[in-house]
């Protein structure tokens, strides 16, 4: 691969991959995308992420960078002169953005998966309450981080916007599947307004998969899960 060329290994539905695509788009960086198949991982993936064997992997010339949040920071630092900054300039604001990004991935993803897998109405309700609690925390975080501006990152979409924003298709798809509101305008009005602004951005329109497509994938995954459970 030529020096300076970018290649992204990913899976279309992965939030972790989507957020990297969003930032690459926003920075106006051209890259080659390779769709991976988890049942049959490519040589390139196994070579460049031998530790975790997961996506996303950003290959930049002869370098491989793994872990989505590490990749976002790499793009920020390596192309600091191009496009808007990914992380804020101030060290404290950076620490806050990093804190909430870790929180989102730690809390939101397991809850979203557990809600889909919940076998009783009671279990489902408990998980939904858990998601609401997390989103309510993020509503408060938005107030502080945005300081009255359009995004967590301020005037432009940044690190925390794409970390949470990459979940939006999944959140809205899941609402259709479980027939319950997760991102509720009565409970998290600021986040819903932020969502509308976020979805209108070019870098998001080009990269976030449609809710319909994610819903179809979600239903397939649930069916497979049920089959596996019944087979035991």
């Amino acid at each position, binding site marked *: 691969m030529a020096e300076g060329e970018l290649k992204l290994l990913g899976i279309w539905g992965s939030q972790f991959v989507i957020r990297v695509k969003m930032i690459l788009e926003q920075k106006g960086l051209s890259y080659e995308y390779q769709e991976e198949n988890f049942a049959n991982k490519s040589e390139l993936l196994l070579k460049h992420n031998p*530790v975790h064997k997961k996506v996303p992997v950003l290959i*930049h010339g002869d*370098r491989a*960078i*793994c*872990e989505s949040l*590490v*990749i976002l*920071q*790499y793009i920020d*630092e*390596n192309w600091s002169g191009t496009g808007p900054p990914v992380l804020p300039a101030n*060290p*404290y604001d*950076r*620490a806050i953005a*990093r*804190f909430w990004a*870790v*929180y989102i991935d730690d809390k939101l993803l397991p809850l979203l998966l557990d809600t889909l897998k919940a076998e009783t109405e009671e279990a489902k309700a408990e998980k939904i309450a858990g998601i609401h609690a997390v989103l309510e*925390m993020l509503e408060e975080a938005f107030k502080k981080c945005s300081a009255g501006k359009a995004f967590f990152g301020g005037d432009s979409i940044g690190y925390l916007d794409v970390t949470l924003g990459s979940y939006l298709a999944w959140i809205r798809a899941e609402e259709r599947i479980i027939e319950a509101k997760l991102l509720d305008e009565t409970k998290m009005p600021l986040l819903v307004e932020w969502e509308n602004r976020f979805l209108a951005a070019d870098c998001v329109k080009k990269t976030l998969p449609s809710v319909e497509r994610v819903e179809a994938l979600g239903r397939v995954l649930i069916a497979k899960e049920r089959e596996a459970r019944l087979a035991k």
Partner: protein
Amino acid sequence: MATSNGPVLLDFWVSPFGQRVRIAMAEKGIEYEYKEEDLFNKSELLLNSNPVHKKVPVLIHDGKTICESLIIMEYVDEVWSGKVKLLPSDSYQRAQARFWADFSSKVYECGTRVWKLKGEKQEAAKKEMIEMLKLFEAELGNKTYFGGDTFGFVDTALIPFTSWFYTYETFGNFSIKEVTPKIGAWAKRCMERESVAKALYEPNKVYEFVCFLKKYYGIE
């Protein structure tokens, strides 16, 4: 001695995450006030400073709170950007350091399963622990430190967990030292640094603490 306007670290003596921050602060020569927290009876200050997780370490600086050990380390490296830098300056080296530092936290999570669980689950955790440490050995290679010639971000992130190896070995009935000698040698080199020697406790003390935890939580 730190003034009341200087940084304050809320911490717990044996917390490896707190030790990461203590080592980082010492390496960078930052004066601060250390406040020991009773994790079994958390203070108002801790609960107010870290309402989301209610955990240590927490750094209080300029009236603001910073939580999560690796995030505190990055903050400290950026704010006190003098001569000693924990992260390298090259963007790719920084990405590598962040990757391995993040991975090092899994050593603790895996180790906790080793001392808490029994049977198949414990065996799985033991296997995982050795695999992880071998990956770290490969990454270290023949370097003095993970940072190369200089002690850095990954060294700081990983070293506190080495004082827990004796505990894992004893409860897991397996040897970590024998199968990962390079890690042992690296740990010894790190322990020669004042910042590390002052922050870490003797493996026996850590073992005593975990025995206490097992009793407290009623784990066999």
